[in-house]
């Protein structure tokens, strides 16, 4: 029911979604984050904390399963170097009803942004720099604490 993958391989969306649907759900909500092709990044590299990353993602998924009535929660995160247009992260929530699936999907990606040990490095025209954390990510994650299960 909970599926966590952290790996350097490209994310195979069709098989991940098919796996989410196999839980017998009536509603599947997904979010895919991609390397944006429009802001001059030539290469994006994701570093992570092996072991701690998987444990953190599992806690995020378990927490979603406690808040909403879910049949499945999936988090797949790519690590290592990737190019514009490639998928960085995929999350899915499967539920009997769409409200639970949609809310849990938003929760998974919001929490993942602040609770899991990933760091992004961007290369633009040969110059490489680490991405700074965004206040908006912290705010997005915090609203789940402030407002309960919505």
């Amino acid at each position: 029911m909970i599926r966590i993958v952290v790996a350097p391989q490209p994310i195979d969306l069709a098989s991940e979604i098919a796996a989410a649907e196999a839980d017998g759900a009536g509603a599947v909500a997904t979010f895919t984050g991609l390397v944006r092709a429009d802001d001059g990044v030539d290469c994006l590299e994701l570093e992570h904390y092996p072991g701690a990353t998987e444990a953190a993602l599992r806690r995020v998924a378990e927490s979603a399963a406690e808040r909403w009535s879910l049949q499945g929660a999936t988090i797949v995160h790519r690590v290592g170097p990737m190019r514009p247009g490639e998928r960085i992260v995929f999350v899915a929530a499967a539920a009997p009803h769409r409200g639970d699936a949609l809310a849990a999907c938003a929760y998974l990606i919001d929490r993942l942004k602040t609770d899991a040990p990933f760091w992004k490095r961007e290369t633009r025209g040969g110059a490489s720099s680490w991405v700074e954390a965004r206040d908006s990510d912290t705010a997005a994650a915090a609203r789940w604490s402030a407002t309960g299960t919505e």
Partner: protein
Amino acid sequence: MPIQMLYFAWVRERIGVAGEQVTPPDDVRDVAGLIAWLAGRSAGHAEAFADPARLRAAVDQDFVALDAPIAGAREIAVFPPVTGG
């Protein structure tokens, strides 16, 4: 008992290694103290740890505040705020 330190992202780059074993003196009791003590090991450590407000830490893979005690810790990671997903 030695502590396995792990460094990530620009903390790792500035220090120049991904990890090291250290044995801090007994008066180093929390993560902030450990960071201050490590800052004296090299110019790279000093640069990486110059601004503790920009650092986050995990003790035995649990994310903690910098005032968390380190007694009994086997693995401590120091890194910038996360930027995943």
